[in-house]
């Protein structure tokens, strides 16, 4: 997709090298990191320069290690850093080569003697053993063997064509001979790495041929996300939820700061003064207990949110661990309370099974009816809502054409202190089709929540101390 755009656009001429030699290059690199959203301070750049003085620059590992230790300071930043590092220095090196008109000797005619079957095997073996350098050489061989001449001009297409020609697949291929490394299938991560190598070599070729630098491809959300999509990967969700539990447990303790608005606890002060002969040297303060909000959670479990509902249920489960005063409901067409299920089951798996088995979600049509849900909810909890209560709705706000009844929703939010809405769809899709989130959004704070970091954003908002 991005490649097609690149094709249609006129390539930029090779830009001039940044001023200031290597330092300039490094600053340009930092600038690119900032463009991708990393917060880099000048002090960190200074650290990077200081670190580079300590290591040999000729070793790529150490050079990169020194830079990442000083610049990228969280797992997410690391990921961005790795991607930008590869992109930037690859382009910088190629641009420099093009500027000096260094090209590779065109001695590729000999490779057609290569036994293609042997090459296939060799590549599969290198993938399995994870040898980067060999892999790069083999990628070049593969391009020379399969990719020359009939290049389609679109990098992505060429990459896939070469991969197919090599017979590299993720799924096992039992009809291959016993000793073939491709037999058991190749890990997706390894395939991705090889494709990356191919793409890079093809790009290098292209730059060399056209003597111009294609526009850089900005990182997409997909690149930036960890190799497995976090929400699909239940283990990753659980890890974040576990973190979330801890944060929920400690949040609000900032209020405990002993010196702010602390009340002297006379009893304990007097008692402590006995140690010092009746002189109250040490003042004892009454601890400030964080205020635990009362929470009502509504969770959509209809088919339109199937992929997200595991995620939602595990969030719900985590919330149950963290807040004592919590009532939870699941709904499709009507609502049913599942507070007890979650309180009884400490294990998430058992809890979600129990919810789907005997929560008795009145599910006649299988389509969500938000209007009805609000009316029922209001009837159920009207008396319990008060300004310190928090209502959280997990759902996609897709009404299947039924009346949204946002007036009833407004009545609920008016009685509750805060209302949050977590929508598992990217904001792009909001209000398209039968999504009526806009009608609800004016009464509550809506979060898009399809990545774990967005969930964290929500947790931050949720755990902000209520100033009542």
């Amino acid at each position, binding site marked *: 997709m991005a490649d097609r755009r690149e094709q249609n656009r006129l390539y930029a001429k090779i830009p001039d090298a940044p001023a200031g030699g290597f330092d300039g290059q490094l600053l340009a690199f930092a600038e690119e990191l900032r463009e991708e959203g990393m917060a880099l301070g000048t002090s960190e750049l200074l650290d990077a320069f200081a670190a580079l003085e300590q*290591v040999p620059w000729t070793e790529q590992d150490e050079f990169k290690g020194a830079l990442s230790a000083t610049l990228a300071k969280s797992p997410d930043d690391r990921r961005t850093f790795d991607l930008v590092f590869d992109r930037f220095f690859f382009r910088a090196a190629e641009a420099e080569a093009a500027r000096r008109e260094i090209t590779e000797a065109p001695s590729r005619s000999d490779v057609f003697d290569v036994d293609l079957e042997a090459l296939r095997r060799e590549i599969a073996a290198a993938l399995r053993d994870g040898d980067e350098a060999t892999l790069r050489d083999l990628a070049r061989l593969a391009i020379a063997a399969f990719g020359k001449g009939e290049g389609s001009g679109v990098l992505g297409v060429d990459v896939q064509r070469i991969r197919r020609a090599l017979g590299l697949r993720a799924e096992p291929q039992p009809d291959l001979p016993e000793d073939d490394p491709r037999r058991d299938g190749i890990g997706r991560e390894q395939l991705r790495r090889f494709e990356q190598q191919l793409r890079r070599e093809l790009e290098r070729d292209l730059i060399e041929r056209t003597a111009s630098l294609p526009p850089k491809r900005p990182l997409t959300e997909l690149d930036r996300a960890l190799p497995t999509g976090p929400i699909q990967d239940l283990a990753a969700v659980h890890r974040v939820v*576990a973190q979330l539990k801890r944060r929920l447990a400690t949040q609000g303790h900032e209020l405990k700061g002993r010196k702010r608005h602390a009340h002297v606890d006379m009893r304990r002060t007097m008692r402590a003064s006995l140690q010092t*002969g009746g002189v109250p*040297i*040490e003042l004892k303060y009454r601890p400030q207990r964080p205020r635990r909000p009362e929470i009502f959670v509504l969770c959509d479990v209809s088919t339109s949110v199937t992929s997200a509902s595991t995620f939602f249920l595990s969030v719900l489960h985590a919330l149950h661990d963290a807040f004592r005063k919590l009532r939870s409901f699941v709904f499709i067409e009507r609502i049913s309370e599942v507070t007890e299920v979650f309180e009884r089951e400490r294990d998430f798996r058992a809890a979600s099974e129990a919810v789907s088995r005997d929560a008795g979600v009145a599910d006649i049509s299988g389509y969500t009816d938000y209007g009805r849900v609000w009316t029922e909810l209001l009837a159920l909890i009207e008396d319990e809502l008060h300004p310190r209560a928090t209502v959280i709705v997990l759902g996609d706000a897709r009404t299947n054409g039924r009346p949204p009844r946002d007036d009833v929703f407004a009545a609920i939010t008016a009685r509750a202190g805060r209302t949050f809405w977590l929508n598992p769809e990217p904001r792009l899709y909001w209000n398209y089709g039968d999504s009526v989130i806009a009608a609800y959004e004016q009464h509550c704070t809506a979060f898009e929540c399809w990545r774990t970091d967005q969930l964290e954003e929500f947790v931050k908002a949720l755990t902000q101390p209520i100033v009542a």
Partner: protein
Amino acid sequence: MPETITEPSSVDDVVAGLRSVGYLPGSSTALVSYLAIKLGKPVLVEGPAGVGKTELAKALARYLGRTLVRLQCYEGLDEAKALYEWNYKKQLLRIQTEAGETGWREVQDDIFGEEFLLPRPLMTAISSPDPVVLLIDEIDKTDQEFEAMLLELLSEFQISIPELGRIEARTQPVVLLTSNNTRELTEALKRRCLYLWLDYPETEHELEIVRLHSPDLDETLARKLVEIIHQVRELDLKKPPSIAESIDWARALLLLGADEIDGETFKQTMSVIVKHRTDLDTVAARVGVKLEPASGDGQPAA
């Protein structure tokens, strides 16, 4: 013990040094340790539990021939327990013994001297005459105020005591902060540190670690053990097995005299690597069954 103090001159020195004290560092671990020593910057070490974050600090201390000063963080940790505290009782005694004979001014000057100071770990690290390795363990357990308090120490290596003035470090300590990443640390703290992300090691690396700690274990058995551990880590577990648990398991197998990890042995010993009841079920169902000594199913275990 100044004669044993080592000063590495290259990253390879650090690798060799850490290996010599029984810690097998990954390449980035060695590099960041080297930078920390050379640049005098604190290192923030993050990663899942049990990948050797704390062990790294201990190994560095052994290798550099320095004392290890450790501050274990927990919720509610404050200056009095981390930095210094006035020894009230001693001060009181002083006041009482001097009462009547000396004037207010002398006593006041007196009782706020270093003699009445109880040094806590951070203070100890700063004021030690020999350079030390300071380990601030599980910094993510404390609250943000405490982090803010650390800033002065981490960037200037000094502590301000209102009654006494500044106490500056006499020697440059190597500082390691570890975090299990349960809470986002403040930007200010991160800015002052080098960053090291420790993850579960690659198969070969872990194999080497296991072999180092239980050299009597058969090579093929150890390899199989590590491969199984890696499979188990892929599962969705509450607590995936750490390196420490691989080592424990290796030792357990040695004690039992097992020469093969089959379904039976695995069932008996898997509680060494998996510590939750529900996890045990998952592991037994997903990994344990593959190990059943059925030779005909064409699925060679691991």
